[in-house]
């Protein structure tokens, strides 16, 4: 069994290396600055920043703001006009090099701020639902930040093309969720534990790889990722043998185990934050890449590598589960632990291997997440509810169901942005999660059990 495990791990590492090696050389040229999915995630952060960061002028009563797309594109030369409620013009200005504008107003009160959409660059426009004129109230002596949500003009590309592009991003997200979800589902299946700290395993993988990639000698990301996976696997094995197996022996209830994983999640996230800092940070490698054009798709090599690697890893996992002795043992334990034990299966060893693989898969998911959106300590926790949604949609405890459910969740999340604002896309998987819980608690592929 162990030998097989080792072979599986080696294969996984090999696949990872090959795919990155194929894609790596195409890197290192100019970016076109349209990392759409990255921007969407950063909208919230931007707006927080707009309110908190830009209020240094205290004595004067001002209206101010920053016009930008994501963190990397500040838009200069956008005309902003402030009028009072009667319509008289108070001031007019254009944004500076860093996209900033500031207009002093004579008094506290309510003003109308207008952005001249014509002065935005051609590829940009105001987001759907964002008016060109915003009414805002400012207090005396304060600086009030005014937010204009700027996005890429959607009209420029036809619907089919946008759909295809979103579907690809959704597939990528879904596969990443699926990798983490397989671990969560297998751990639940074999040990009955719902691991709320699974998100922190995801973050942990990304952060460890980041550490090897940047601070510690600056290893190539592929090597750093492989090392990161080893550390993740060791952590998973350590958690099972050092914490959860002894706990299981104490016959703790569901609630106690769930609360312990929540405590672990808080502890782990804060430890990561202490070590990593709260600011989002990127890897060194594969950040700036030219897009490849395939028909309607414009994809970066790193996205192709993500999809290819995750697909291969999941296929290897499925084959292992279906055909190998370890896979059969795992499915037997998941089906009925006592029967499996009576049949001579070493349940503890199965649990240990499942934890090791589960933690590695989660870590790999984190590494791929970090490749596209910068790494921050909340990376995994944000993914956790999506993982739950994927696992629940597929059917709790079923590994294949978790994969299908996760990919569907990924699609739903990304494709929803064709109609709703990207910052609301996380609502979609959560809504799906609740709907599934209501309508079909056993999930798509689960077996109906007594409920309630």
């Amino acid at each position, binding site marked *: 069994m162990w030998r097989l495990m080792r072979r599986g791990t080696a294969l996984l590492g090999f696949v990872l290396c090959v795919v990155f090696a194929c894609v790596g050389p195409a890197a290192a040229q100019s970016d076109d600055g349209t990392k759409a999915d990255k921007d969407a995630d950063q909208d919230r952060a931007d707006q927080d920043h707009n309110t908190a960061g830009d209020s240094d002028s205290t004595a004067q009563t001002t209206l101010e703001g920053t016009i930008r797309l994501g963190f990397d594109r500040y838009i200069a030369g956008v005309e902003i006009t402030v009028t009072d409620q009667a319509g008289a013009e108070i001031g007019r200005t254009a944004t500076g090099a860093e996209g900033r504008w500031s207009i002093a107003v004579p008094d506290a009160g309510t003003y109308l701020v207008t952005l001249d959409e014509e002065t935005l660059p051609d590829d940009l426009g105001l987001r759907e639902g964002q008016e060109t004129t915003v009414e805002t109230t400012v207090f005396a002596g304060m600086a009030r930040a005014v937010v204009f949500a700027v996005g890429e003009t959607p009209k420029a590309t036809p619907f089919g093309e946008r759909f295809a592009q979103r579907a690809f991003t959704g597939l990528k997200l879904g596969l990443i969720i699926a990798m983490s979800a397989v671990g969560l589902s297998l751990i639940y299946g074999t040990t009955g534990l719902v691991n709320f700290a699974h998100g922190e395993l995801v973050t942990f993988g990304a952060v460890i790889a980041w550490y090897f990639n940047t601070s510690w000698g600056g290893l190539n990301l592929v090597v750093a990722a492989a090392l990161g996976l080893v550390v993740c696997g060791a952590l998973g094995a350590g958690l099972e043998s050092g914490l959860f197996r002894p706990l299981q022996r104490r016959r*703790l*209830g569901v609630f106690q185990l*769930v609360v312990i994983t*929540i405590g672990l*999640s808080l*502890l782990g996230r804060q430890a990561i934050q*202490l070590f990593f800092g709260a600011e989002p940070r990127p890897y060194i490698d594969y950040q700036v890449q030219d897009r490849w054009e395939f028909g309607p798709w414009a994809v970066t090599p790193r996205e192709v590598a993500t999809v290819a690697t995750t697909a291969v890893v999941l296929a290897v996992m499925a084959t292992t589960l279906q055909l190998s002795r370890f896979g059969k043992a795992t499915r037997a334990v998941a089906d009925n632990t006592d029967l499996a034990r009576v049949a001579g299966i070493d349940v503890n060893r199965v649990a240990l291997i499942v934890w090791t693989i589960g933690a590695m898969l989660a870590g790999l998911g984190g590494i791929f997440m970090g490749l596209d959106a910068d790494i921050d300590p909340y990376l995994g926790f944000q993914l956790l*509810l999506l993982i739950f949604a994927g696992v629940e949609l597929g059917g709790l405890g079923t590994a294949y169901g978790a994969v299908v459910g996760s990919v569907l969740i990924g699609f739903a999340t990304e494709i929803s942005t064709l109609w709703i604002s990207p910052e609301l896309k996380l609502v979609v998987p959560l*809504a799906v*999660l609740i709907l599934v819980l209501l309508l079909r608690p056993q999930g798509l592929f689960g077996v109906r059990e007594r409920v309630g």
Partner: protein
Amino acid sequence: MMEFDVIFGNAARAAFGPEAVILALAAIGLNVHFGYTGLLNFGQVGFMLLGAYGTSVSVATFGWSLWVGIPVGLALSAVLALALGIPTLRLQAVLFAIATIAAAEILRLIIGSTDAIELTGGPLSISFDASAFYDLNPYAEGPQVRYGAGTFAFTGQQLWVITVGWTLVALAGLAVFLIVRSPWGRVLKSIREDENAARSLGKNVFAYRMQALVIGGVIAGLAGVVDAIKTSGADPNGFRPQVTFFTYTALLLGGSATCTGPVLGAILFWFLREWIESFLRQLAAEAWLPQPISDSLSGSEGVISVGVVGLALIMLVLFRPQGIVGNRTEMLIDDG
């Protein structure tokens, strides 16, 4: 020179300040859900969110009086309990937990989104004029006026908030004490112990759980209202899922399924958290801490003290699940 009187003063101020009031109310509500009924509610923060935003939006956006806004906030919490409970109360414990955490996150994401800016202020947060409340302040106010000694001191306004706050905590605690020792409360506990036994005695398990969910939810909504009044507004970032986890920590620390447990727990939670933060800040001032640790102290939410909360949660469950004043036999729920 370590100034332990300053550390102690800071910790005591946090232990009796408005944050502890809010946590105590949330924990009293959670105690009705989890402690007495055995409901694994992981979305307690959602009720607080609606309490806070119900009040803030009523006053700031619709221009209603604060005395209308507060009932609106509480009513919204009750509506959430009904909307959440009707479909999900039949789920098994862990699935109910996931459903509630998801529902609370949906609310936070929607209320905090740019699309909701005109109604709730979205990511910019919302602020309103709470002078209707502060006008009733009987304490003297002024830039130099402080009540207390050393760092354990409050301004007149703060003292007014916590006076009202602790009164509300006492009233809510008393109300819960009275209803759980009634026959109704005994049914609740019997559902927690064995819902099938309760059902076989002809009790409508679903209805009892629903009533418990609404009562606990409205008390959590009250916590949100106090939060809104304290800050004269609301910010979506203040309602992340860990608020629920902190509430569990406070409840387990004090003692679940007891009357005084949630209040004691909330006071101790904030005392210990602020003690650790304050202690570390002093160590950092003496330059006795490595750089990354002292850097982490500057953030708004103490990185280390929240980590300690996580550790405390694990230790409590493992070594003292009944908390300080609890009864161990009441903590042995296990309904898969």
